[in-house]
């Protein structure tokens, strides 16, 4: 789980952070915090699906479920098992 958290965190930092002074932790609110707009979530979903060889149905890929690195990992684990 920790390893997955770091992989997802690194992806989010590279893919979404524009401002170098911004800091991101496992629990920083991503969508409600305005870092990832719900529209740009698509690339994150695709990354997770490719990386973990899973398929996340659209009704599970909600802004709430993607709102922090921790929550994202919980979601991915649901589909890994």
């Amino acid at each position, binding site marked *: 789980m920790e390893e997955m958290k770091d992989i997802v965190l690194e992806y989010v930092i590279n893919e*979404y952070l524009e401002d170098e002074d911004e800091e991101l932790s496992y629990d920083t609110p991503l969508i409600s915090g305005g870092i990832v707009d719900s529209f740009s979530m698509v690339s994150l979903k695709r990354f997770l699906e490719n990386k973990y060889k899973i398929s996340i149905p659209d009704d599970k890929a909600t802004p709430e479920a993607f709102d922090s690195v921790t929550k994202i990992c919980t979601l991915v684990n649901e589909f890994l098992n």
Partner: protein
Amino acid sequence: MAYSDKIRGIYNESLNEIREKGIFKQERFIHSSQAADIEVEFPTGSELKKVINMCANNYLGLSSHPDVIKAAHEGLDTRGYGMSSVRFICGTQDIHRELEKKVTEFLGTEDTILFPSCMDANAGVFEAILTKDDVMISDRLVHASIIDGIRLAPAEHDTFKHSDMAHLEQKLQLHADKRHKVVITDGVFSMDGDTAKLDEMVALCEKYDAMLFVDESHSSGFIGKTGRGTHEKCGVMGKIDIITTTFGKALGGASGGCVSGRKELVEMCRQKARPYLFSNTIAPVVVSGVNTVLDILSKSTERRDKLEKNTEFWRKGLTEAGFVLKEGDTPIVPVMLFNAKLSQDFSKDLYNEGIYAIGFFFPVVPQGQARIRTQISAGHEMHHLEKALEAFIKVGKKYDILGKTKQEIIAMYGK
């Protein structure tokens, strides 16, 4: 009656939530025509106040230009008030086609199709030209109307970081297997006032066999040496596959928009774009006005030259006074305040000083990037800008932000 108290209650709750968040929008009634000097009733019911308008999209000062008004009168007299039809039934007059030809020539494209607005052009174009085998790759700061258009299209969608060419290239590689790739950007970004790197984008699109879409709503008429737009400024006239733009800003400011570009794409819009097929044609009065606007702009660059000088003065004045600006050289000049409440208070104080400029904050701009967006016009005279600068400095001193860095302002007021 189906509108029960319960239903009413739910809506009132939603409206209260908007109020509590401090993002409830209120209109301010203007009792004059659009210009540098306007008369405003705000709050509703209060006495009229004469203020200098620093937030209109009236970049060229043509919204109330006597020649444009005269042309509109002529349109009204010779072609009537309305057409009561969509374009393809009986809503196309000679002057509609004349306008499409003029826009094509002005923008240096192959063909043009008019839409009721640029919002409609953006909403309709992607669905008309793309299928599920295609991909749209958009800058993360594109205008809301483009986002709606993307949502309506069957193609896949991805985004790249604002103006980040390396990230765009990664995305072009990632989607190499798609039938068509369309890269989507604003020419000038409406909230930040910065300019897309169209020369680099054209090169990337050529390398990866992608089409390029540019929304020129905040550029047409004044960006580039002869005001043709961002593609002129970046030296890539004739290389943009799809341009959308509005007649509702610099080009007279009434209403209407268009898709201009490769002739097959324009023809696809004529056959398939829903806002073109199912919404009424642009009124003859407006078409006649825009035709004259394009004549004025094709004859002389006087207005865009004046706008450029005004913009230089304004950016230099604010910078020397010690404000934090978004970098750029367009007439959209955002004065950064970072904190939402500060941006609202600042705007109120400016209004008391006779300056009309609006504060923008999340979700219109990203969290922690609240600002006053000022927009310069060729309709501004030096005395307008001097008075506005004085007011900005006075209010800036009140909040003690002059000469302060971003970090210092955030330390004082929070994000």
